[in-house]
């Protein structure tokens, strides 16, 4: 028990040193509050590293201005390795949870599979970084169903050590094993490439329950929800279920999958480089104004 306590104390104070992402997650409340204090209209981007790498605030501001939307206040929240489940709770707290200064638009840049209800969750990180005790009711009802996952979620809310273990692991192995991250990615690729058994059940069609909840939440708060399909080097499909949600709700889909086809605009298979993010900013600004006319000054 004493050992556990020591680990907890060390990580509670030392976790920010582990990665830029931990620092960003800890700074999210300040970023959201700072946006709320800035003048209307406000736009909050919520995503992951696709947002961090691919959404350049200056280029978007320029694009917005060109389309007649001046002095739009922008902010980005981009916790690494997250998807719709985490984004829902980030939006709940930092877009709609503030007393005033809510954004007129919530923009969610996404890549392949990011909007689907996740098959694998990380309840400890969810508990530690994106939710509070007040969310437990909704989490248990809608997102975290097994006793083990619920216990992990609560462990994450109580303990930094429980939630940041994977980051410590990655950091240490980075130092010891040459190219550890590439090697780990290769393990995953090799494992995923294994052909499935002929008798294995066909994969279920994707579900978008959390996206529907986010759409509903945005509608309740008079905030436009804009989904931005980001370009990736290998491309991906937008399935019929996703399109039907867009058609049946006020949610807007901005499809930028073909907006940066040149390999020179990409950093790697998923992310854009600086040049690519500037290209996207230029394209996205006017499209946002088209999707959310209230961004334009009256």
């Amino acid at each position, binding site marked *: 028990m*004493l*050992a*556990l306590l*020591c*680990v907890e104390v060390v990580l509670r104070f030392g976790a920010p040193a582990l990665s830029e992402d931990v620092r960003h997650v800890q700074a999210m409340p300040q970023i959201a509050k700072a946006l709320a204090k800035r003048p209307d209209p406000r736009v909050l981007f919520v995503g992951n590293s696709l947002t961090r790498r691919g959404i350049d605030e200056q280029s978007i501001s320029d694009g917005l201005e060109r389309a007649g939307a001046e002095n739009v206040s922008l902010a980005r929240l981009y916790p690494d390795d997250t998807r719709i489940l985490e984004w829902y709770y980030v939006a709940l707290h930092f877009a709609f949870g503030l007393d005033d200064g809510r954004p007129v638009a919530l923009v969610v840049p996404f890549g392949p599979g990011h909007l689907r209800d996740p098959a*694998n969750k*990380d309840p400890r990180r969810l508990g530690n970084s994106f939710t509070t005790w007040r969310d437990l009711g909704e989490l248990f009802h809608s997102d975290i169903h*097994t*006793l*083990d996952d619920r*216990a*992990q979620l609560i*462990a994450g809310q109580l303990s930094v*050590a*429980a939630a*940041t*273990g*994977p980051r*410590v*692991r990655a950091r*240490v*192995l980075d130092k*010891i*094993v*040459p*190219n*550890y991250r590439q*090697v*780990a990615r*290769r*393990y*995953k690729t*090799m*494992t995923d*490439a*294994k052909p499935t058994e002929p008798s294995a059940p066909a994969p279920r069609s994707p579900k978008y329950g959390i996206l529907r909840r986010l759409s509903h939440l945005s509608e309740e708060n008079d905030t436009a929800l804009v989904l931005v399909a980001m370009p990736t080097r290998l491309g991906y499909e937008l399935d019929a279920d996703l399109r039907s949600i867009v058609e049946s709700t006020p949610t807007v889909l901005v499809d930028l999958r073909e907006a940066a086809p040149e390999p020179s605009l990409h950093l790697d298979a998923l992310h854009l480089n600086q040049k690519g993010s500037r290209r996207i900013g230029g394209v996205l600004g006017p499209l946002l104004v088209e999707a959310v006319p209230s961004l334009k000054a009256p």
Partner: protein
Amino acid sequence: MLFNSFEFWIFFAAVLVLYARVGHAKQNVLLLLASYVFYGSWDWRFLSLVLLSTVVDFVVAQKIEANETEGRRRLWLLLSMATNLGLLGVFKYYDFFAVSLVELLNAMGIGASLPVMKVILPVGISFYTFQTMSYTIDVYRRRSKPTRSFVDFALFVCFFPQLVAGPIERASDLLPQVQTPRPRWVEGLREGSYHIVIGLFKKVVIADNLAEIVDAVFASDPSTIGGATCLVGVYAFAFQIYADFSGYSSMAQGVAKILGFDLMFNFRMPYLARDPSDFWRRWHISLSGWLRDYLYISLGGNRGSAWKMYRNLMLTMLLGGLWHGAGWTFIAWGAFHGALLCAFRPFSGKSRAAPGRVRAVVSIVVFFHLVCVGWLLFRAPTIEYAAAMVARIVTDLSPSSFAVSSMLLVSFFTTPLFLYELWVEKKGNMLALLEVSWPARAAVYVYATVMIVTFAPPSRHAFIYFQF
């Protein structure tokens, strides 16, 4: 409900709180109910199989005891064997033998088909059927007296810490502990916590981290990866399966100890074995002891000609392989170990003589590699796949940067355990850590705890031996 899940520890805490408040008789009822809840958490339907085995063997043991005539006693024993082996046959082996027979007949040009059942294998069926069979055999051999209490016997069959993956306990060891009052839980806390921490470390830090490497290598076509990568995959599996299974056994021992029970050590540093006999005295000791006492000796053991002894060894190991799973790779694994036992048999007297340090190290290293050949057969999806991996290892052992990094990962996770086990072996006491000064003990606990908290891989893996 895995031992490495929060769910299990919440369950165990709840059981322990109630357990500490009631007397011996009620403790047994509580543990029995808890065991059924534990087993039912996998699939309630399979509880009926445990109950069937329990009822049949409880009645059979009484009947054997009540009958003096050898023929009748043997008939009752046969009923027990038929029930338990019948359950195993139906749920574990039927599909494999049906498909194999049809393939054989078709290969001979005889058109044939047999229905297959595609049933889910009930978790732990091989463990509890062997445990309950040992009870009726011991009663038949007049080595044990049958218990008159159904609750006590049912608890012996399905005691939850060791129900799904052993150790396969003998009635003569476990039943008396069920029948008599046990020490208070706090008295077992020190040793129990040691077993649990070591077990969790082995499972979470070593086995689950190595699983990522093993799964990746064995999911690949051997022709697309280098021989060095194949070799690292085999090494990784050797340590994964050891850490996974011995970790489970250790946690079972720890949980049982806190409840006042002493379970046997199922592993004693198996990779320090110098020959096959030594290995089987160290690896899955409860199964190898079971096979020795109830199969090898029943077949004649060492009695008779050398040829008969080799036949008995081969048969015992073949069936030991088949016990693990219905597949040709498991049979090949058993045959390989049978062949090793036969091949080393003529030298067994000589190898017992105390060897020099260099010779001992060479023996350990050579025998570890022979064990690895067995693990390759055990883990490979088919025998052809295992052969293809061997071919890659033999023909192309040039180390790629990927293989080197993977080997570094394997070393990082396994070296501390290996050094610890060397120390335990030198001390000759499995609980040596409990006898050192508290700062040294604390240092080991702190290291293990920090690693468990921070080095758990992103995905949790089920225990390998649950599938058997």
